[in-house]
């Protein structure tokens, strides 16, 4: 089976399902969303990622219709959704608190939306049965929400929001209340369901791993602004700012003035230290401040200075965090800055070459680090 890559955002002929056009949302004088424009495509699993209070829920509530943008427009399938009340939108939301109706059984909770559409009894029963099967809740159909576990409740909430087969499904921190193991299982379950149903999902999360796991694209938010929208791997490998680089995964950032050289720039980050080099497409002026973001797993640790790499720094091991399959070394440079390096633990404990206070060399290739403008 030939697999075509799913990336409608790169296809100029593709029409986005959702378009944010200069959307601003203010509560009184407080600006929760600040003039944002971005698109979400059909069948995407789109993640909004950001720290608490950055405006993720507000974004969702505008899509669901519980808040109206103060300025700008949101288009769904090309049409402005502002005049459409929440009960008429082809959008369903899975609430952060699940918001299951406590007086109704699991079955009735799932059937609630279908009944409002005035579907006939048979069609409703068939659809509810389908949803129960999809979320593996058949055995609990007659229970009330308070008689099932947290994980099951979360699946009821999902089934209820999926039942009406909305064009767009909004998930506001759907897995927040689950423990780590269940969370992971459910993430994969969500991806399965998204693939089976072909619904467009927008998921809110403040957990970067979750966003990276489930999403086709991730929008990283900061203080009412979307800083970068990109695929998980590009967000990780090619962040557009130190904020994104720092928010996603572990990173060391060194700043200094840059000088163009070869296919990139040379960065002078501290007096008496060798300059560092990184390939880059940015167009920076000579002497401008640049930021070098280096992922720990791209940094090699060696007892001797490697001859084949121009990025090599000497330091002292400050700390070793043992993570089982990996170890993270915190290496202090003579300037006091700390660079993180990560290596795979392929050997048993006794054979590890480095320990605390050891003098080591850190090195990385020309293309390993990302040069950032801000």
């Amino acid at each position, binding site marked *: 089976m030939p697999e075509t890559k799913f990336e409608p955002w790169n296809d100029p002929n593709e029409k986005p399902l959702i378009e944010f056009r200069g959307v601003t949302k203010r509560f009184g004088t407080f600006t929760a969303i600040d003039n944002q424009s971005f698109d979400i495509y059909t069948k995407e699993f789109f993640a909004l990622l950001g720290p608490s209070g950055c405006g993720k829920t507000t974004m969702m509530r505008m899509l669901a219709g519980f808040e109206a943008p103060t300025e700008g427009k949101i288009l769904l399938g090309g049409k402005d959704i502002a005049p459409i009340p929440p*009960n008429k939108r082809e959008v369903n*939301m899975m609430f952060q608190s699940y918001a299951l*109706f406590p*007086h109704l059984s699991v079955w009735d909770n799932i059937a609630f939306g279908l009944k409002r559409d005035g579907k006939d009894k048979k069609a409703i029963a068939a659809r509810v049965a389908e949803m129960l099967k999809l979320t593996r809740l058949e055995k609990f159909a007659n229970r009330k929400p308070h008689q099932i576990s947290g994980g099951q409740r979360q699946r009821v909430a999902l089934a209820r929001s999926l039942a009406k087969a909305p064009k767009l499904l909004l998930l506001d921190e759907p897995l927040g209340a689950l423990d780590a193991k269940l969370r992971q299982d459910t993430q994969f379950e969500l991806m399965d369901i998204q693939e089976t149903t072909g619904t467009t999902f927008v998921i809110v999360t403040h957990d970067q791993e979750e966003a990276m796991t489930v999403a086709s694209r991730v929008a990283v938010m900061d203080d009412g602004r979307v800083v970068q929208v990109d695929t998980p791997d590009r967000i990780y490998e090619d962040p557009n700012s130190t904020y994104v680089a720092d928010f996603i995964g572990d990173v060391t950032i060194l700043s200094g003035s840059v000088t163009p050289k070869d296919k990139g720039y040379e960065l002078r980050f501290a007096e008496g230290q060798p300059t560092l080099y990184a390939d880059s497409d940015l167009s920076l002026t000579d002497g401008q401040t640049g930021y070098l973001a280096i992922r720990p797993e791209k940094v090699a640790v060696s007892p001797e200075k490697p001859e084949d790499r121009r990025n090599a720094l000497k330091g002292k091991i400050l700390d070793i965090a043992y993570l089982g399959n990996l170890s993270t070394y915190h290496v202090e440079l003579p300037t006091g800055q700390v660079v993180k390096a990560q290596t795979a633990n392929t050997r048993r404990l006794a054979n590890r070459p480095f320990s605390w206070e050891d003098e080591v060399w850190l090195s990385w290739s020309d293309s390993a680090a990302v040069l950032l403008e801000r």
Partner: protein
Amino acid sequence: MRRAILILVPYLWLLALFLVPFAIVLKISLSDYNLSIPPYTPQMDFSNGWWQGVKDLFAAFDFENFIFLTEDDLYWKAYLSSLQIATISTLLTLMVGYPIAYGMARAPEQWRPTLMMLVILPFWTSFLIRVYAWKGILSTEGYLNQVLLGIGVIGEPLTILNTNVAVYIGIVYTYLPFMILPIYAALDKMDGSLLEAAEDLGCSRLSAFWLVTVPLSRNGIIAGSFLVFIPAVGEFVIPALLGGSETLMIGKVLYEEFFNNRDWPVASAVAVILLLILVIPIVLFQRNQQKQRESDG
């Protein structure tokens, strides 16, 4: 041992404050009318020994007074009329109380203690005086008529005082807090996102209210209704002060038997039947409370 005492205390309480008085009333209801002090016979007479005294007492008991209640249609009419007035007033109290409770639960957080205070405030003055005040409001020359005449809504004063309407107004006014508080408690607990979820799934505001808000405040509605209905059935002061000759309520009948006719045995029989009638709603009320505790727990 401590457990036993802890369990015993409420039972002793119940025994002293409910069962003993009830036994006394029941005993009087089985006795006969007599012109004496106290005005009934037989009295306890233990001069021939304790056991003989009890035997004599039981031998003299009969159901004459209860049979009498079935013979005069005043009594069952009074019971029925009381139940009817209590039912109508309960519905009216619900209709007035629900919107108030709803408004309180939707009010900004910082206002709620004040609103709650306003609901409870009337309890700080005497119930009797407050009902009396309604006479001044509802009478033909009262404030209500003066205002209505003044703004020209009516040409002639309305006769409200000394009718059942005045009794309804009195009961609704007096028992309103008992309706508001349990409903408010239920609405206050309700998660606001449930209404958003209902709207999200296709409900209008109104249908979300009927499908979500009302069912979720059901226990509050039931509790409030019983808290109004049960005392309203036996209400005496309100029909006595605000009602007229047409107002027939069992509380008034009871009062007249005791104090005007001084027929304690018949009055006691009236009271015993009233209690038996009220056992049904009281049991239902308890069941509702129990269910609520279970669903909360």
